[in-house]
Each structure stands twice: as structure tokens, then as C-alpha cells.
């Protein structure tokens, strides 16, 4: 229903302004690609420079066998996620959201909730122009706040950790369920059926022994598939879809 409403509004707005906003969005994407790539390539260069400097500048090279062994084991855990995460979050994050999120990190626990909260606050739908810009603004602000909190605490590091009251430490593992529960509810308000479907599939999948990266992927693929079928069915009933 919501998706139809959005596209109706898009259709109704005059052709002139649609063209203008399309052009502006294209220009925006071109700039986002440029700055996104420039910043990410610079971080890649620095990430190569540091180990090279330690190995050959200072002479602490541990040997390629050690590095390759460690890297192969590590890649065995995370290599699939390198590809899966950017692909599966792209429809939600859009071009600029992808560049910011994958540089600053913490996508599931920080970037997505911030993007969702921002879209929620201004009433923008994910997957629309307004939705993408709002997500980018939300994630950008989140990334800045993250660094503002991260830098001083890491600098003060060891002092802080020894001063957290012991009885409060038990709460930390509960922060994630709190964030996830709230964000799921936020979307379930708009589309309660989607929420129910996702939760049933999610619970079923999490009771299996699939590796973590496959759990997330299969939950997204299955839920999207079922929701698409559901909308198709609804559309047929209302005669909303042409060519059906």
C-alpha cells in the first residue's frame, strides 16, 4: 500500500519538478561516487601502508607464511560478508549511505537504526529519493557522534574500564536486543504483516545451525520473496497492477 502511495505521489507531481529532482539526484550520485571512492581508496592506501611500514620500514616482518595463514583463517570467517553486506543493504542505504556505512562501520547496530530513525522522524520511505537523502543525513550525523564518543574514551581507555560499577556490566549484553526490538517495532507499525513474517522466519532460521552470514541472507531473501508475493496478490485483488 505504502509503495503504491509513494509512486502515486511521484506520478502526480508535475513532470517539470520530477525532471528537476531526477537531474539533481543524478548530480548528487555522481558527486557521492567521487567523494565516496576518494575517501575509501585513501583509507585502503593507509591500511596497506601501515603493515608494510612495520614489516619493511622497521624490520619486524613476521614472514609471508604467517600472514597468509592468519589471513586465510580470518577470511574464512568474514570473506562472504565482504560481498553480502554491501549487496543486501544497498536497497536500504542507497549510493551515499553505502559509502558512509561501509567506511564508518557498525552497520547493523548503528547505521541502519540511525537511518531508520531519521526516515521515521521525517516520514520518508526507504527506497525513495527523500528516503536516501534522509538516510545519508542520519548516518552522517551518527558517524560523527560515534567518533566524538569513540575518540576520547579510547584515549582514556584503561582508566574508564576499571571504573565501571560491576553491577552495571550485566546490562551491556542487553543493549543489542533493546536496539533491535525497538527498530523492528518501528517498521512493524507501518507494515505489521512484514514484521510478523520477518520475525517468524528469523526465529526459525536462528534455531538452525546455519553460519551467521547465511542466516541474515536467507531471512532477507525469504521475507522479501514472501512480501512481494503478498503485494502481488493484493494488487491482483484490487486490479492495481497492470500487465498482470
Amino acid at each position, binding site marked *: 500500500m505504502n*509503495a503504491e502511495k509513494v*509512486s502515486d505521489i511521484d506520478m502526480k507531481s508535475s513532470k517539470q519538478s520530477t525532471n528537476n*529532482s531526477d537531474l539533481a539526484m543524478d548530480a548528487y550520485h555522481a558527486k*557521492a*561516487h567521487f567523494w565516496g571512492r576518494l575517501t575509501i581508496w585513501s583509507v*585502503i592506501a*593507509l591500511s596497506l*601502508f601501515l*603493515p608494510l611500514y*612495520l614489516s619493511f620500514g622497521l624490520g619486524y616482518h*613476521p614472514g609471508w607464511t604467517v*600472514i597468509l595463514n*592468519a589471513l586465510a*583463517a580470518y577470511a574464512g570467517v*568474514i*570473506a562472504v*560478508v*565482504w560481498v553480502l553486506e554491501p*549487496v543486501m*543493504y544497498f536497497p*536500504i542505504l542507497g549510493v*551515499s549511505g553505502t*559509502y558512509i556505512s*561501509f*567506511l564508518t562501520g557498525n552497520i547493523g547496530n*548503528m547505521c541502519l537504526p*540511525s537511518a531508520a530513525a531519521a526516515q521515521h*522522524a*521525517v516520514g520518508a*520511505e526507504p527506497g525513495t529519493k*527523500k*528516503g536516501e*537523502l534522509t538516510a*545519508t*543525513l*542520519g548516518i*552522517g*550525523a551518527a*558517524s*560523527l557522534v560515534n*567518533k566524538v564518543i*569513540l575518540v576520547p574514551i579510547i584515549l582514556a581507555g584503561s582508566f574508564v574500564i576499571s571504573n565501571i560499577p560491576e553491577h552495571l556490566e550485566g*546490562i*551491556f549484553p542487553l543493549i543489542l*536486543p*533493546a*536496539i533491535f*526490538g525497538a527498530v*523492528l517495532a*518501528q517498521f*512493524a*507499525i507501518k507494515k505489521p504483516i*512484514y*514484521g510478523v*513474517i520477518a*520475525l517468524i522466519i528469523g526465529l526459525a532460521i536462528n534455531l538452525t545451525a546455519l553460519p551467521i552470514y547465511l542466516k541474515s541472507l536467507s531471512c*532477507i531473501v525469504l521475507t*522479501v520473496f514472501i512480501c*512481494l508475493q503478498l503485494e502481488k496478490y493484493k494488487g491482483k485483488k484490487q486490479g492495481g497492477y*497492470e500487465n498482470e
Partner: protein
Amino acid sequence: MQQAMDLANSSMMWIVASLVIGIVIFQSIKFIQLASKTSIDVGMSKKEVRSALKTGAIAAIGPSIAIVIVAISLIAFLGNPLTLLRIGVIGSAPIESVGASFASEASGASLGGEGYNEMVITAIVWTLCLGGMGWLLFTALFTKSLDNMEKKINKGKKGKQIMGVVATAAIVAAFGNLVSAELIKGLAPIVVAVIAGATMIISTKLSERFQVSWLREWSLGLSILISLCFGYFFI
């Protein structure tokens, strides 16, 4: 161990870590600028832009504190600059500690223990830096292809409808999966997740009925805070 930590906290580590964090901050500011400029053409008001920024910032406070608290545990064997470098960009404390322990195992040492020297630190830096680069390389190389693919699908009314459903269903599914993984861990996470969800629904309904926008901006923060207070009695 002492020599290893001296290297881990050396000035070159600090310089590289500061540069990387600087780039991340620069990128966020640049993208906020670009998005605010374009927002006018898409028909967003200044108020909406401010609201999006404020909401994103507030929503990040809780998760950031959680991230940082876990990250502090890395300082003991990675030193401050390397921890900052790895947590400030993509990667998370649990996965970085996995990488670090693989690297020290491959070097025949244990993290922060027996035989932990400069070469082990160097092996860790190689592993974590190259490991984190996977996401960066993929994003730098293929975001444009993903964009073109989406633009093709988005042509036409039907494509737009379908993309809208896909985007919404995908994000609901992502969180359905994340929350399910927490729910199966025990009673306390279930209580917290349910109360967080209920708080979110109540505050959203209230903000809609009485038109209070600050309540919508704070709804995620409030949900986390209130549900954690309840969770405290279940641990």
C-alpha cells in the same frame, strides 16, 4: 610483551590512526553537505533536514557507547591507536579480536601472553588491515554497478513499486533476523526486546496523536533506556 606494546603505541601508529579517523570524519561532513544541498531539489524542507540529522545523532549515542565499551577490551593487547584505527572504521570489536587471535596463533604466540613481540603485532596489523579492506574494496569497486542495476529496475512505475516493497521488506527482515538471534539467548533479552518494541510503538502513536516531533526523534533512545531499566531486574 613490553616491547610489543611500545611498538603498538608508537607514534607512526598514532599518525596513521589519526589520519584514518580524520578521513572518516571528513567523509561524513562532506556527505551531509552534499545531501543537504540536494534535499531542496527533492522537496525536503530545512526543518526535515535538521530533524534527520538530529535523529541520526541521537540514535547513535546508545550504540556508540555499547561499541566503545566492548572496544576497550581490545586496548589491553592492541594498544590505543590500533584499537582506534580498527574500531573507527568498518569492523567490530568481537570480529577484530577473532582476527587478532588468528594472527597471534599463526605466529605461534598467544594474545598478550607468551612470545607476544613486535613481529606478532606486525602479523596482527597485516591481518586486521587486510581483513577490513575486503568491505572497502568491494564498496569502492562495485557501488556504482549496484547503483546502475537499481536505476534500471527503478525505471517505470511497476519497478518503483517493487523496489519500495523490496527495500521495506529487506530492512524489516534484517532486523527480524537480528532480534531473533537475541531472543533465543534467554529471558532477559526477550523482556528487553519486547519492552523496547512496545515503548517504540507507544511513543510513535503518542507523537502522531499530539504532533510532538521531539518524541519521534527521541523514540529510539527512550526505548533503549526504558527497556534496559526493566532488563536490569532480570539479570
